[in-house]
C-alpha cells in the first residue's frame, strides 16, 4: 500500500471504518508509510461499538486492544487475532446464494482491513492470515457448513499450538544448551521467547546474570525486568546509550525478532540493530530467537523502505520527568518533525545464530527454510 499516492489513499479512506486523521508534520523520508494522529481514534471507535454490524465484536475488541497498545508483541497479537477469528467463524453462517469459502474469505478480508486500520499488520499476523485463507480455500464443496466450521476451528487450534506454543518450547530447549554457568546474558526490550529461555534456564539451576537494555519511548524492558526479578534472576538494567559501557562484561546476547527476512535480515524492535552492531564489535555472539512461522520471503536492505511509524507525542513527552518540556507545542512549528520508528532491520552479518523450531541455523539458511518448508509444506 503506497501511502504517498493520493488517489489510493482517498479510496482507502472511503472504505475504512476507523477514519484516521493524517498527522501534521509528516517526516518526508517516510511519506510512503501511514502517519496518523494517534489518540483521536480510540474514543471514536469506542463510541461506535454497538453500531457496527459488519464487524464481529471479538474482532472489534482485538482491534481496540491493538490501538491502545494493550496487546503488544508478535506472538501475542497473532494469537489474539486467530482466537478472534475462531469466534467469528463459529458465529458465521453462510448467506443463501453464496459458497462458504468465497464468502468467508471476503469476510476475513474485511476484518483484516479493519485490523490494519487500527495498527499495521506484523509479519506473524500476515503469515497466519495467509494460512487461514489457504485452509478456507481447501475446504471441499461437499462438506456441510458445520463440518467446515469445525475443520477450520481445529486448523486454527493446531496452528496456534504447533507453530507458536510448541515451537517456543523447542526453541527454549535448544537455547538453554547455549547458556553456561557464569554467563552474563544481554537482552534488548521484551521478547516472549527470550523471557521463556531465561526463566527455563534459571529453573534448570544455571548460574547466570541478565543485563536488560531498554529504550524510549516504550520502555518495554521494565516489564521484563519486573517479571525476571520476581522469579529471582539477578538483573542489571540500563538504557541503550550505555551499551558500549556494559558490553565489556557481557558473554552472550539474546534477541527476539518480529520476523526474519529472506536475505537474513532480522526485522525487529528499533534499537536491535544498534545492540547487534556493538556486540559484533566486541566479538560477542548474537543469538536471535524466532519461530519459523515468522519467516518471510520478502527482502529488505534498510529500515526505511518498510517500517511502522508510531505516535510522535510519546517522544516529545518524557513520563516522570516534567522538566523535559522543551517540545511542548511541537506540532505548531513546521520545521520540527518527531520520528517514532517501531522497527528496524539488522543486517545478517551481525547475527551469529538463529534459533528456530527447525533447529539452530545461520542467517544464510533462512531462504532455504522459507522455500523447502514453504507455503505448501509449512502448513501441514
Amino acid at each position, binding site marked *: 500500500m503506497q501511502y504517498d499516492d493520493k488517489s489510493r489513499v482517498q479510496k482507502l479512506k472511503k472504505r475504512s471504518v476507523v477514519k484516521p486523521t493524517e498527522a501534521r508534520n509528516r517526516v518526508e523520508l517516510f511519506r510512503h508509510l501511514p502517519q496518523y494522529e494517534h489518540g483521536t481514534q480510540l474514543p471514536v471507535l469506542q463510541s461506535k461499538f454497538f453500531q457496527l454490524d459488519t464487524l464481529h465484536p471479538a474482532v472489534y475488541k482485538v482491534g481496540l486492544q491493538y490501538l491502545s497498545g494493550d496487546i503488544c508483541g508478535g506472538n501475542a497479537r497473532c494469537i489474539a487475532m486467530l482466537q478472534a477469528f475462531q469466534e467469528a467463524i463459529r458465529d458465521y453462517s453462510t448467506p443463501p446464494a453464496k459458497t462458504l469459502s468465497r464468502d468467508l474469505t471476503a469476510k476475513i478480508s474485511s476484518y483484516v482491513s479493519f485490523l490494519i486500520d487500527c495498527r499495521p499488520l506484523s509479519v506473524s499476523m500476515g503469515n497466519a492470515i495467509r494460512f487461514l485463507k489457504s485452509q478456507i480455500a481447501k475446504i471441499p464443496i461437499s462438506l456441510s457448513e458445520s463440518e467446515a466450521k469445525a475443520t477450520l476451528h481445529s486448523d486454527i487450534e493446531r496452528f496456534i499450538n504447533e507453530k507458536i506454543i510448541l515451537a517456543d518450547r523447542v526453541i527454549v530447549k535448544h537455547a538453554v544448551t547455549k547458556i553456561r554457568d557464569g554467563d552474563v546474558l544481554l537482552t534488548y526490550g521484551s521478547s516472549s521467547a527470550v523471557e521463556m529461555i531465561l526463566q527455563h534456564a534459571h529453573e534448570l539451576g544455571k548460574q547466570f546474570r541478565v543485563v536488560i537494555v531498554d529504550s524510549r519511548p516504550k520502555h518495554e524492558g521494565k516489564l521484563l525486568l519486573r517479571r525476571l*526479578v520476581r522469579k*529471582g534472576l539477578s538483573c*542489571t538494567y540500563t538504557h541503550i*546509550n550505555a551499551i*558500549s559501557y*556494559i558490553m565489556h562484561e557481557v558473554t552472550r546476547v539474546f534477541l527476539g525478532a518480529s520476523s526474519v527476512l529472506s536475505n537474513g535480515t532480522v526485522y525487529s524492535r528499533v534499537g536491535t540493530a*544498534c545492540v547487534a552492531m556493538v556486540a559484533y564489535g566486541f566479538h560477542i555472539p548474537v543469538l536471535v530467537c524466532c519461530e519459523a512461522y515468522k519467516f518471510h520471503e520478502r527482502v529488505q536492505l534498510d529500515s526505511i523502505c518498510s517500517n511502522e511509524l508510531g505516535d510522535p507525542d510519546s517522544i*516529545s513527552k518524557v513520563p516522570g520527568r516534567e522538566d523535559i518540556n522543551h517540545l511542548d507545542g511541537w506540532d505548531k512549528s513546521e*520545521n*520540527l518533525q518527531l520520528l517514532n520508528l517501531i522497527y528496524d532491520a539488522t543486517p545478517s552479518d551481525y547475527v551469529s545464530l538463529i534459533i528456530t523450531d527447525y533447529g539452530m541455523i545461520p542467517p544464510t539458511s533462512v531462504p532455504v527454510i522459507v522455500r523447502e518448508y514453504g507455503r505448501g509444506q509449512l502448513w501441514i
Partner: protein
Amino acid sequence: MNTDDSSWWPMGDGVLCNAASQTYPSCNTFTHALSFFNKIEGSQATARQTAELLRSVISQQRVPYTNQAGALIDAVKAIGEQLIAANPVELAVGNIVRRVLHIIREEDLSLTTAAIGGLNLSAVSDDENDDDRDGDSTLSAAAVAAAARSTLRPPSLQTLLEDTPVSAAVPQTSSSGGDSEGKSKFSFTAADKSSRSRKLKHDVIEAVNELIQDIVTCHEQIAEQAVEHIHQNEVILTLGSSRTVLEFLFAAKEKKRSFRVFVAEGAPRYQGHLLAKELVARGLQTTLITDSAVFAMISRVNMVIVGAHAVMANGGVIAPVGMNLVALAAQKHAVPFVVLAGSHKLCPLYPHNPEVLLNELRSPSELLDFGEFSDCMDFGSGSGSPLLHVVNPAFDYVPPKLVSLFITDAGGHNPSYMYRLIADYYSADDLVVQRRATAGN
C-alpha cells in the same frame, strides 16, 4: 619552600595560608563549587573560571628576585592540584592548569633568551630591556650557561654559540652547580632584576588573558570553518546538545547553506530536545529521533557532527553517553564523523581504561522510578544483596580510529595529529600536577 613572606603553604582543609596568615579564600569557594554543587556546568565555563582564578593567583603571588618562574609554578601547581582533585572528571580544569604552567615556562624562557640576546651586544633583540643592558660588559660563556640554566630549560648549543664572537676563553671557575639562587656572576643591576620579575608576571598575565580570550571565542573560530564542510542539501546527524555544534550549524545557515538535521535525543538527559528547539527557532529543518533509531536513520545521513567533553592525547574522545554507538554506526555506513572541540578540551593524558576511570555514574533514578521498583532493590530479601542493579554512565569513549576529523579553533586535524597540538600547548614536565616535594630548604 622558602620561608619568606612570599611563600604559601597548606593548612588543613584545603585553605592556603602564608606566613602573614592571609588565607586565600576564593580558591576554597571555587573548589567547593566544583566538587559539591556542580554549579559550573560545561567545559567552557569551567575552563574560563579556572583561567581567571589562576590569573588572580599569579597576580597576587609575590615572587622572589631569583627563580620567579619556579615560585609561580609552585603556586599554580598547589592550587591546580586541589582543583583537579575536586573534580577529576572535568578534564578542562587540569588542561587549563597545565596550559598556564606551560605559559609560565615559555614566557620565562623567552625572557631569558631575550635577556641573553640583549647582553650580547651583537645580537639583535627587540626586547625593550635592551636599554638597560647597554652598559654591561662582556660576559663569559660560563655566565651565559649559568643564565641559561637559570631558566627552566637546559642550556642549548645555540645560546652558547651565540656568545662565542664576544668572549675569548672559557674561564675555569665556572659557576659550579649552576645554583641559580644566589651565585650569579651577572652584572645585572638591581633595577634589571625587579624589572625582569615584573616583566615575567606581566607577560604571563598577558598570555593568560590571551588564553581566556581564546576560550571565550573558541565557538566563533570553530564556526568560521562551517562553510568549508557543509554544502547544499546535506543531512546532518547529531546527538545530545553542544553549544559548539549549535554555533557551527548557525554559521552554515547564515551563509545560506540548506541542510536538514537529525537530532538524537540523548537519553537520559534528553538534551537533544533543547538542541532541536533551538535549531527550529532559527529556521532549520529538524527531525528528532530516539537513540535506538540511530542505526536505522544513519544510512540517509551525509555527515555526523558532534561535540566532545574532552579530547585525549591519542585522539580518542570522551563524549556524552551514546556517542560510541553513533560512531560505530557511522563507520559501518562510511559516514564522516566530525568532532568539534575547543583547544581547552585537549587533554595531554592518555586514556587508560577510560570507560571506568574517566567516567561518572549518575543516579539510577533517571532510568527507573525508585517507588516503582523499591521492592526489587530491597537489601533485606534472600541472600542480602539486591537482585537489581542499575547502570547509568555519563560519558562514553570513542576510539580515535572512528573519528574522521577534529575541528578545533586552530583548524581541522586528523586524530593522529592531536599529539602535536599537545606539544604546542603543554610541557612534558606538567603532566602530573604535583608540587615538588620540599627538600627542607
